């Protein structure tokens, strides 16, 4: 059987990749995808721990995370479309009317 730590390490790596991509990538869609990656890393953690504790609540949590992520995606994509309509670009560096 695969020990629990493998799952945890994997999800930590996935989460870190997500964080890194969030900070490095310039395309808004990619940035958005990296957030999804982070959320899925969290889901993996939840499932792994749910298995470890033999407790279903972790898995229930995952369902909620998925639902909420879907809602977030809907709103996020809508905003991205609004951005594209006003700017004709999805490059983060060019969405800089207000200096960060």
């Amino acid at each position, binding site marked *: 059987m695969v020990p629990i730590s493998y799952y945890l390490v994997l999800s930590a790596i996935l989460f870190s990749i997500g964080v890194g991509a969030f900070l490095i990538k310039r395309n808004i869609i990619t940035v958005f995808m990296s*957030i999804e990656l982070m959320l899925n890393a969290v889901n993996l953690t939840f499932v792994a721990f749910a298995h470890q504790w033999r407790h279903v609540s972790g898995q229930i*949590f995952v369902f909620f995370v998925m639902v909420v992520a879907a809602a977030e995606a809907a709103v996020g994509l809508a905003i991205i479309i609004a951005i594209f309509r006003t700017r004709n670009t999805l490059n983060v560096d060019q969405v800089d009317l207000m200096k960060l």
Partner: protein
Amino acid sequence: MNMQLARILPEVILTITGVIIMLAEPLLQKNSSRKPLGWFAVLGTLAALFASMWQLHLPDGTAYFGTVQTDAYSVFFHVLIAGIVLATLLVSLDSIDGSAESVGEFFALICFGAVGMMLMTSAVELLLVFIGLEISSISTYIMACFRRKSAKGPESAIKYFLLGSFATAFFLYGIALIFGATGTTAIAAIGRILTVGQTPLLAVVGLAMILIGIGFKVSAAPFQVWTPDVYEGAPSPVVGLMSTAPKAAAFAVLLRILYVAFPLLHYHWQPLVWWMAVLSMCVGNLGALRQQNVKRMLAYSSIANAGYLLAAFTALSQEGVAAASFYAVTYAAMNVGIFAVVSHAGGFGDRLTLVQDYRGLAYRSPLLGGAMAFFLISLIGIPFTGGFFGKFYVFAAALHSGMVWLTIIGLINSGIACYYYLRLLAAVYSKPVHTDLLDGIPRPTMPLLLALVLTVAATLILGIVPGQVLSLARAGANTLVPYVTTAMK
């Protein structure tokens, strides 16, 4: 009435209000005014407000499998959020163009956002905290994007959305690790499990992640970068809302998590919060000094105020919790108030943006100028306003717990803050009057007057006779106190 339902009655009322508005909106004529829907939302919010107060008569307890709890603490924040939402609705009714498309949705979104924030404050299960957080966040993302034709609107929204979701991921990862460490996500149970035996490293890391997540939401430094941009681009009434209500809810959650779930880990989180408080105060106030844009300046001011509030967190006492709760109320009263003035003067589309655009406002409209001056005075923290008493309480609590340096840094910061508030104040009262811009300001309408009366009265009461609110804040803090005292042992 069903006891379970009674515990989420305000949320239920607001949800129904929002749903009815969403359903009614398409039934209205295409070009007819949507403002009656806004008034309906006001009614719903009032009902929710009274329902929250009524909840005080319920015995303390949990419902829905121990996920929500009504107690003096949750009611305190419910009433606060309902009050903020009420004022925001009135301000929006004043400044929004009622016949524009999908304005009804705007009112519904405010209601839904309020549901999320209220759920956050009464949640005692991290799952529900997460859901409440997301309900409120998603609603605010959309509201931030409401001026979607303007260039700044969507930019502001995307920044808010991306960084908000980023923070949510951290928050979730924190929950996952804590679940791994303790096997539960119920806040009180986590506290019980962590009192026995050693503290697992996972829990500490998880707590740090939660701090990062909430730190983003309340725009505490070093997680504040998004705030000025988002505030600058979002419609002013929305900024008034999102700089107060979601933050108050997030602070309430953070207080509950820190004091109930992790009282024993305070030697881990107290220094972190100390640094966050100091950084927020310094970054906020120093950043605000060089801002020309009023909303950006107020954004930095809100970062600084998050710092003052966090200062109360470090007190590790009932006084600290009460001071933080009290400060949330005072900050909400004055900040919603000043954004009411900004919304009316600048309109939904931000006609007045720079400090110098406000030159002579007091001569053009004594009412608006006077109200703005009053709220600025409160933000500076002059006695007879809530801003003074809030700061007084926060720093008294911090000093009482031996946080001498934090108090000194905080008070010096609030001295620095005078400078930029005074710049705006001086502009408002200076001549010559900037007539071409100021002549566009419409006459104050009834909803605006109501909102101003509400916020001015609240600020004055909090400053002159704060006894009642103080008692409520303390009663709320008392519900967290058992955990605090175990921590101090």
